[in-house]
């Protein structure tokens, strides 16, 4: 194979090189075409249709070049050209050809000399010649078909053609000179053509063409554009590339100082490198809030140093502006906190909208179950043998399941029993949800009691986290067991299951939150008293200070920052709770994998040698990777991050670390210890179910944060908002102090209820309107679908010759008693109709057979001759045509 291939390659390359020079695109194209199986002829036609919208003119220009050659060939092979005549007329007919000719002539002038000296480079010249030819010869147009057929002969005639090409261009040369100048209209047409070519260049990669064709088309188009744009005085074509190159150079590597963006303003130049200025202020301010206590924190007890680290709210101070650049820390803290929510919302909703747009919604599911499974279930990205095996298995399973589904579609059993069981299952699940909620509430209350004691054991300190993690561990399998009662379809059952787990998580989280709010309220009261005390103390101090030393300059009390009386700082406390929750969640996940999957796999694998039953196939077997559960875990985790990030900005960093490490860790666990799930549930991004859950949890985590921001007073002595009555006052402050006055008045107008209420009303109306519009679209969609279905059925009926109008007649026919006795001319009764229907039936049945012979349903008619029909069941073929539309 190799040797022969090489030989053929060699000779082919020779030939091609020849023809490249001689025939340009037409040659290259025809060569490929001719070799291909016959079916590709049809593809050619497809391509031609593709070309259609691009406009005939540009096509004509393209096709004419080879066509010219064909024309020359045709002079020798007249028999062929006669076949092709009508087709070609399309391209080259009429006055257009004349216009072309002129253009061609123009082009010809430019490149004439080149053409003479070097055929290979003479593309332009050839184009010109071809166009000229288009004017002269009626049957010039498109010689595509001709190219296909005459390819072999053409190959032999490369050299001849070359000569011909030269001579034709010579002859056209003189014509071209006559029509030297172009009129306005021609100019416009030419420009149009250039535009079309440009468009072609833009979309050429989307064309279903062979690469070779694409490359040649591209080259032609580009040369055309280059040349004619130059001729039209625009010069854009030639400069286009240069411009591109220049722009990339400009954008890549402008040195420092070349544009304003990259230069430090004159005023700041002296101090720009004085980073210490910034640092100094910062450090001094922060040192007041830090405690020099030992860092005795390990994972679960986030006390000590970590509590005052950058992780938490309390670390950030409330100085309004920092440094010369006037970085407004409180404002940016607030904006980032709120902006994160805004951005997340936008991303989630955009993804959902895109999915709905691309996927066509969930409503279409079931229409193409088998077809989609057949054509889209293989993932072309798979490049690993083991993965491929798993995929084969899962595809087979899914097909089998669909078959079973299909067969059992119509079955229904004792509906009362099932209903009862479902109610019972839901009741049990609600009970366990309530129970877990109460348990968490109870534990939180207890932990508040513990907070006043100091002699706590490790368990007592971390009781809450342990309980929550345990609940998350125990409840999902419990739900799964209960769900067995319901006997739903697996897909629906999965959704129920996920929904329930979600409810559990959410319930737990919210119970936890409410308990937390209780705690916050007590802390607020405590804070009030401390604040009063400290204000009093400072007042005393200042009074003493100014009395003793007569100095108006106020210096802070000479107190070690560690000794300052401080409030409880509830924000940090909330943040700590969330960090603790996240960390314990990480630990539980990792431990579960280590024990539940890894240890299990090790035991199953190695104890299997000395066990009385087959551990791998039998009871414990290997763990399955629970895709949906894991996705849900991710969603939930994300919710926790959203909620906690405002009070513990470091949580985001922790989460990133967690996600990165868990990706590799879980990847290892899956590859090493798990077996694939028996039924693969697609947890892809395109699944709006998960995105819906994400949106829900985003909204729910938004609520508590916004509530605290809007209604609770911030701590008086910690965090960026200390000293303000409400956190959002930071915005007001900025508007008042930093922005020009009119902006402030603008905002006050905008905040006026008189404006807000109409705006809300307007939005509600818009929502209503859009909703009804989408409703209407949905309806018309349904209509169209119905229509399509009807058209389809009708077509099928016609093909199967089971015309519904004929059905009655056929039944009548079948009822006739004597048809086995007198075969040829049996039914005199349906008189006028029967001769009409019968032959038709025969013909179509044969067609049926020819089209789909192995179809068992249509097999039956094959045995039967068109004449008499012994024992043909009345409904034999009718069922197909008439049955309810497949759903």
């Amino acid at each position: 194979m190799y040797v022969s291939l090489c030989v053929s390659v060699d000779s082919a390359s020779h030939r091609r090189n020849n023809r490249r020079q001689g025939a340009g695109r037409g040659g290259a194209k025809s060569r490929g075409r001719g070799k291909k199986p016959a079916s590709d002829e049809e593809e050619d036609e497809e391509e031609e249709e593709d070309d259609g919208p691009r406009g005939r003119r540009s096509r004509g220009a393209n096709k004419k070049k080879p066509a010219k050659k064909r024309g020359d060939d045709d002079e020798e092979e007249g028999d062929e050209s006669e076949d092709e005549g009508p087709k070609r007329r399309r391209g080259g007919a009429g006055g257009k050809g004349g216009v072309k000719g002129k253009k061609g002539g123009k082009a010809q002038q430019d490149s004439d000399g080149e053409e003479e000296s070097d055929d290979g480079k003479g593309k332009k010249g050839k184009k010109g010649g071809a166009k000229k030819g288009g004017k002269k010869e009626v049957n010039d147009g498109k010689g595509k078909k001709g190219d296909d057929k005459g390819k072999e002969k053409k190959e032999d005639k490369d050299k001849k053609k070359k000569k011909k090409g030269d001579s034709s261009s010579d002859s056209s040369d003189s014509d071209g000179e006559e029509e030297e100048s172009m009129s306005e209209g021609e100019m416009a047409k030419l420009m149009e053509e250039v535009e079309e070519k440009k468009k072609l260049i833009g979309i050429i990669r989307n064309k279903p063409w062979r690469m070779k064709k694409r490359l040649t088309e591209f080259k032609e188009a580009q040369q055309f554009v280059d040349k004619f744009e130059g001729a039209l005085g625009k010069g854009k074509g030639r400069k286009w590339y240069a411009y591109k190159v220049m722009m990339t150079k400009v954008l890549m590597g402008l040195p420092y100082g070349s544009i304003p963006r990259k230069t430090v303003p004159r005023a700041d130049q002296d101090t720009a490198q004085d980073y210490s200025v910034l640092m100094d202020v910062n450090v001094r301010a922060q040192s007041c809030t830090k405690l020099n206590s030992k860092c005795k924190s390990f994972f679960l007890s986030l006390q000590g140093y970590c509590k005052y680290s950058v992780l938490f709210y309390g670390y950030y101070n409330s100085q309004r502006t920092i440094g010369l650049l006037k970085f407004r820390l409180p404002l940016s803290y607030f904006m980032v906190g709120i902006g994160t929510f805004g951005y997340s919302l936008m991303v989630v909703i955009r993804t959902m909208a895109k999915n709905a747009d691309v996927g066509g919604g969930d409503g279409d599911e079931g229409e193409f179950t088998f077809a989609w499974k057949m054509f889209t279930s293989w993932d072309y990205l798979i490049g690993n043998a083991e993965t491929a095996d798993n995929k084969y298995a899962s595809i087979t399973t899914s097909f089998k399941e669909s078959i079973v589904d299909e067969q059992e579609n119509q079955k229904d059993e004792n509906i009362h029993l099932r209903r009862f069981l479902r109610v019972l299952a839901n009741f049990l699940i609600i009970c366990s949800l309530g129970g877990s909620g109460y348990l968490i509430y109870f534990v939180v209350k207890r932990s508040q009691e513990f907070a006043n004691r100091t002699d706590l054991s490790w368990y007592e300190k971390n009781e809450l986290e342990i309980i929550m993690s345990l609940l998350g561990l125990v409840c999902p399998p419990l739900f799964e067991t209960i769900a067995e009662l319901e006997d739903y379809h697996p897909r629906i059952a999965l959704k129920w299951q996920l929904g329930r787990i979600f409810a559990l998580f959410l319930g737990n989280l919210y119970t936890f939150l409410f308990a937390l709010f209780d705690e916050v309220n007590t802390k607020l009261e405590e804070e009030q008293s401390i604040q009063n005390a400290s204000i009093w103390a400072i007042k005393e101090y200042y009074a003493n200070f100014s009395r003793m030393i007569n100095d108006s300059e106020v210096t802070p009390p000479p107190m070690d920052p560690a000794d300052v009386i401080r409030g409880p700082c509830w924000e940090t406390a909330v943040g700590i709770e969330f960090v603790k929750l996240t960390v314990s969640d990480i630990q539980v996940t990792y431990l579960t994998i280590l024990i539940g999957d890894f240890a299990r796999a090790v035991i199953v694998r190695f104890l299997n040698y000395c066990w009385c039953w087959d551990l791998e196939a039998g009871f414990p077997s290997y763990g399955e990777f629970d895709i949906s559960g894991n996705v849900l875990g991710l969603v939930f985790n994300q919710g926790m991050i959203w909620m906690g990030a405002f009070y513990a900005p470091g949580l985001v960093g922790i989460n990133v670390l967690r996600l990165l490490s868990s990706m590799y860790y879980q990847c290892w666990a899956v590859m090493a210890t798990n077996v694939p799930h028996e039924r693969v549930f697609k947890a892809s991004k395109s699944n709006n179910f998960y995105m819906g859950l994400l949106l829900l949890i985003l909204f729910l985590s938004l609520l508590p944060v916004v509530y605290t921001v809007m209604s609770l007073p911030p701590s008086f002595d910690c965090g960026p908002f200390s000293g303000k009555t409400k956190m959002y006052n930071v915005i007001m402050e900025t508007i008042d102090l930093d922005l020009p006055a009119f902006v402030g008045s603008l905002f006050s107008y905008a905040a006026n209820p008189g404006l807000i209420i109409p705006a809300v009303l307007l939005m509600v109306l818009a929502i209503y309107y859009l909703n009804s519009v989408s409703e209407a679209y949905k309806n018309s969609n349904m209509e169209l679908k119905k229509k399509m279905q009807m058209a389809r059925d009708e077509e099928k009926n016609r093909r199967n010759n089971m015309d519904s109008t004929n059905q009655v007649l056929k039944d009548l026919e079948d009822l006739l008693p004597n048809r086995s006795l007198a075969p040829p001319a049996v039914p005199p009764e349906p008189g006028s109709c029967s001769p009409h229907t019968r032959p038709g039936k025969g013909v179509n049945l044969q067609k049926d057979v020819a089209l789909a012979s192995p179809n068992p349903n249509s097999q039956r008619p094959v045995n039967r001759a068109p004449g008499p029909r012994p024992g043909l069941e009345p409904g034999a073929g009718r069922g197909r045509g008439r049955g309810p539309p497949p759903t």
Partner: protein
Amino acid sequence: MGNKQTIFTDEQLDAYQDCTFFTRKEILRLHARYHELAPHLVPMDYTNEPDCKLPLALIVNMPELKENPFRNRIVESFSEDGMGNLSFNEFVDMFSVLSEMAPRELKAIYAFKIYDYNVDNYLCKEDLKKTLNKLTKEELTPEEVDLVCDKTIEEADLDGDNKLSYSDFENMITRAPDFLSTFHIRI
């Protein structure tokens, strides 16, 4: 790999860039991949467009295609001779269509060609059977295969000719949620 400039001229790279969904770097990488399939056959210098084709057996062994049940069909449908011999142009073409950037319509056309085993521009029942058997490694019984193929045709066949034309196929595939993500090879 040698100096980049010697493999392709600037114009060639530009043309490839405009005709495919690849960047220059990717084109060069594709060339490297193509070259390493048969180092003694494929020249390093493509500036004068050497005519060189690699047989199906070599290409099918690329790790990207090795596990694909339709690998032969993929290569065949991109080869100009229909036998699976790919020139570099066709090689680039193949991965361009299968790249992430290619639009749905283009992918649909080539997917149709790939599943059309007997190259008659229709997906008839035989084609479907072959596809299905490749997908499931012939684990389904003949009756099941029959049923699935019938069902598939019934679902997607709009004009009722008991085989799927391209328009049937396109109508079905453009609504498939997973088509774009699965009909995609990263190289």
